[in-house]
Every structure is written in structure tokens, then in C-alpha cells.
């Protein structure tokens, strides 16, 4: 694949919203004029089981319909997956991994099976609980991957997400501000970017 295409792999646990974040990223990229794919890998899902989702984002149409084995970026929505799943498998050393964790990137590197590329972390729990009052890690992690990958222009991304939230939460506008705050603060706070 040429580098005009960005491939992202999401690792999460059932119920944390990794699939939703993946589809939100596809939405945001679509809004900025890109060709997108957003798709989860399905199995016998249940709450807490490891799940995988994928994004392809490109300036040209992409016809490939397979999972992503050599991602440019990996997002880990649940830190406990680092021991359970080979999250850096095939990950491009020129790319990066973004992990939901309160710890510093270098503290986590020993768990990454020799991955030599960039490691970033974000304390999505703290941000989510601070601005949404509950633990929804996917919105902060979405912002983090946009910041780290540079796949979308940040101001445009924020504007598109606000429009998307206004549409999605039309019946409960009180949650829009918290979600927007989650995005902007996460983009500032992601470590190692």
C-alpha cells in the first residue's frame, strides 16, 4: 500500500466503544473529503472480550476488503490488552502506538514486544471522568489518534466532530460540551506525540 493511505488498527474490549470510535473516525475523515473504511472484526462478542476494529483513510478509493496486518498506527483502548494481545504485530516503526494509560510512554515500552517506533499515552479515564462524569474512553482515544497520526487537520476535525455531536445528541444537548472538552483536552494532553 502506498503511504497516501493511512491504516489504523483499534484494540479494545467489548463495551468500551472501540468500534464506535473507529466509525466516528471514519465519519470525521469522510467529512474532510477522504475515502474511508471503518469496520470491526466480529466474533462471539461479549462485554470485556478483546475486539479489533480497523480504519483505512485515503485520498483515493480503496478496494481492499481484508483486515489490516501492517497498520501505520495502533490504538489500544484498554491497557490490560498489552499482556493479552500482540497489539504491535505488523505495526510500522515509522508510525506509532497510542495507549490509554495514566503511565508515561517509556514505562509501557517494555510491554510492547520490541516495538521500536513512537509510543504515546493518554489518561482517557481521567479525562472522560472529569468532563463526562463517566468512563467512556473512546472519545479521548479518538482525539489522541487524530493528533498523533496527523491524518486529519485538527481544527477541521474539531469542527466536524462538533457538528456530528450536535446531530447525534440533538435530544440531549447538555452532553455536547463535555464531549467537545474531552476531544480538545485529549489532543493537548496526549504524551509522546
Amino acid at each position, binding site marked *: *500500500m502506498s503511504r497516501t493511505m493511512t491504516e489504523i488498527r483499534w484494540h479494545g474490549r467489548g463495551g468500551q466503544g472501540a468500534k464506535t470510535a473507529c*466509525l466516528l473516525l*471514519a*465519519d470525521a475523515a*469522510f467529512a474532510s473529503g477522504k*475515502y*474511508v*473504511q*471503518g*469496520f*470491526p472484526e*466480529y*466474533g*462471539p462478542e461479549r462485554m470485556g472480550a478483546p475486539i479489533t476494529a480497523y480504519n483505512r483513510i485515503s485520498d483515493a*478509493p*480503496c*478496494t*481492499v*476488503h*481484508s*483486515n489490516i*496486518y501492517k497498520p501505520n498506527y495502533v490504538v489500544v483502548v484498554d491497557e490490560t490488552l498489552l499482556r493479552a494481545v500482540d497489539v504491535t504485530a505488523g505495526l510500522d516503526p515509522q508510525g506509532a502506538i497510542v495507549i490509554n494509560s495514566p503511565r508515561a510512554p517509556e514505562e509501557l515500552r517494555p510491554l510492547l514486544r520490541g516495538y521500536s517506533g513512537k509510543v504515546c499515552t493518554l489518561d482517557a479515564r481521567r479525562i472522560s471522568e472529569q468532563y463526562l462524569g463517566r468512563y467512556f474512553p473512546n472519545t479521548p482515544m479518538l482525539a489522541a489518534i487524530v493528533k498523533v497520526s496527523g491524518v486529519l487537520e485538527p481544527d477541521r476535525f474539531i469542527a466536524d466532530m462538533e457538528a456530528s455531536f450536535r446531530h447525534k445528541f440533538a435530544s440531549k444537548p447538555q452532553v455536547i460540551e463535555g464531549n467537545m472538552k474531552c476531544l480538545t483536552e485529549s489532543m493537548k494532553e496526549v504524551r509522546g506525540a
Partner: protein
Amino acid sequence: MSIRDRLSGNEAIAHAMRQIDPDVFAAFPITPSTEIPQYFAQYVADGKVGTEYVTVESEHSSMSTCIGAAAAGARAVTATSSAGLAFMYEVLYVAASSRLPITLACVNRTLTGPININNDHSDSMGARDSGWLQIYSENNQEAYDNYLQAMRISEHPSVRLPIMICQDGFITSHAVENILLEEDEVVKRFVGEYRPEHALIGRDNPLAVGPYDTCPFCMEHKVQQAEAMKNAKKVILDVAADFERTFGRKYGFFEEYRMEDAEVALVLIGSTAGTAKACIEKLRANGIKAGLVKVRVFRPFPMEEIANALRNVKAVAVMDKSEGYSACGGPLFAEVRSACYDLDTPPKMIDVVYGLAGRDCAVEDIERVYLHLMKIAETGIVGPRYIHMGQRSSQEEVL
């Protein structure tokens, strides 16, 4: 004007259904087609369609509901997958032999067992001899476009057969991708109203649907059904031509990709075609003349046309996404190999069964098949004709 959007394959089908606003939707959920009745139920609740939405207790009943509705003169639709389609089996034949133009959105999923929810084509391939038209889709766009063409083919007076519009479960049904949608009014005009020549309700000529047929007549009726399937070939091309005039996207019995000078070619169905196209570009950059025939219409099967498309190719791999358990290859292989029998110098041909129960197929997997074909083309030695891709249990791994 087309509308740029992004939808999953299931959303695309539900969107097409809303635009068409059929008379009856018989709904019973099964993964991975469940979202179609789910989205459509929202349209019903929001008053966006006038459809009679009938929730039933099984797929046997959803197809039976469609049969009753279609016999009464209504445009009837449903959606299903896997075991749901299998549970319809008896009534699939009733729908076809009663010449009822029902539209079924089939979101392909493997058949049990072992239990698995992922994609292959074993469900619709099992129904390939039921008398239904079958059209397959590579992506969300084709699922949408095929659905918009379905009723004009199925309801045509020279055809009057039910139709399945198939797409790959999860791979396209749950993948959000860019899509071009068409305006409601243009779609409605293109699809048109359904005006059956014969129906149980509201007509002056009383008729019976599904009565006993005695030996002196029953075979004649089956032959008429076989003729209708042949007639469908012309109608499919006519509707595709009108679709292209109206919306600008071209369809045929199959898509030929880089076949103009191809020495090695794949024949396959569905979403893997896109992966194969990416592989072909990669191989051609290295001087390998690879091509692809993506089968869109499987019933009726375009026999002469496929043979013609393959006549100059040295080696062909038919890729079957279902096991026929015939001990000699899958159902697509049987058709394509038979089609090439009348060629003076048919290509060397193998069957590669792949992707069963959701086994992923990446560009690199396709590349191995092309390289294997290059070896066959160069040496003239075919080797095993019936291969299963990437088997951890196989002692002699071919691919």
C-alpha cells in the same frame, strides 16, 4: 445528482428499501442481516414508508408472508442470512415456481456447523438450484445499485422470478465506506410501480396459486420456469443499460478487470474482488499479466460469456467461497469449468476454496494464487485441481 455519503452495506440496502417503499416487509432477524429490518423498522416508525411491516416468528414464515403478499399482487421484500435462508428452503422453491417476484437481501454468512457467524457463500450457494435469480455485490455501492435494479429484473413479465441480492456478511454489511446515493424521486422513477398481470386480490380474473400439478402438466411448468431464467439474461442487461444511462454506473453479468491481455486470471464472487484488484495492480507493476473476472450474476449463469472472457487466458483459478462437498470442487468451479468445455483450447483451471467461515483473505493471499497460476502457465503442469487455501492441518500445503 448523486449524493456523496458513507454507509455500511446494510445501511445501503435499508436506504434503497426506504426509497422504493415496498408494500410488504416480512421481518425476522438473523446476524449479520439483522440491521436491515432494524433500520427499516425505524423508517416505518417514523412514517417514512407506507410499508406493511410484518414481524414473524421464523424465516419460514417471513418467506411465506412474502409469498402470500406477492400472490396478492404486492411488492414484497425480506432480508436474511445463513440458517435463516436455510430455514426458508422449502418455500424458496414455492416462491420461484409460483413465479412470484420477491426481493430478498441476502447477507452472506456461513452455514452451521461448527457454529460461526462470519462470511462465506454457503448459504446462497445452497439455494442456487431453487429457481431464484442471484446477484452478488463487491461492496456497499454495488449492494445498493444491485438492489435498485432487482425489482425491474424480477418483476419483468418475461421473467417473474424472485431475486436475491447478496453481499458479504460483515465484510461489506458492517463496513462503513464511501457511497454515492441517488435522489429518492429518481430512484422511484427508475424502479417504477409493480403492476402484476395476475394477482389474487383486486383483479377480474380469478386464479389459483400453488395448486397440485399433475404429471401431464407439471414438467411443462418447470420448463417454463427454466425458460424464464434464460429470459432473465436479456432483462438483466437491459436494466443495467438503463441504470447506466440514469445513474452512470456500469454493470453486466460480470466485471472484467485487466482481462484485455491477461495470462493468468481469477474468477470469484463478492468483496474479495476488490482485494484482488489491488493485488493485480501490484503484480502488473512487476510485469505479471494478471486479470480478474468478478461474477455478479450467478443465476442465471452467463456460461458463453464467461467462456469468452477466459478464452485467451493460460491458467485460471476459480475461487470458491463455499465448500460444495462434491469431492471435486466448489459450485463456482463446476460452472466455470463446464462453461469452458466448449472452448477449442480451454485454459488450465484449478479450484481454490478460500475464506470459509470468515477466514480472512488479504492481498498477499491472492498474490500466492497468482504466482501459483504463473507456475502452471509456464510449466503446463496443473498439479492438484482442488485446493483449500491456508490450511494449518494440510500436510502438503499448496497455497
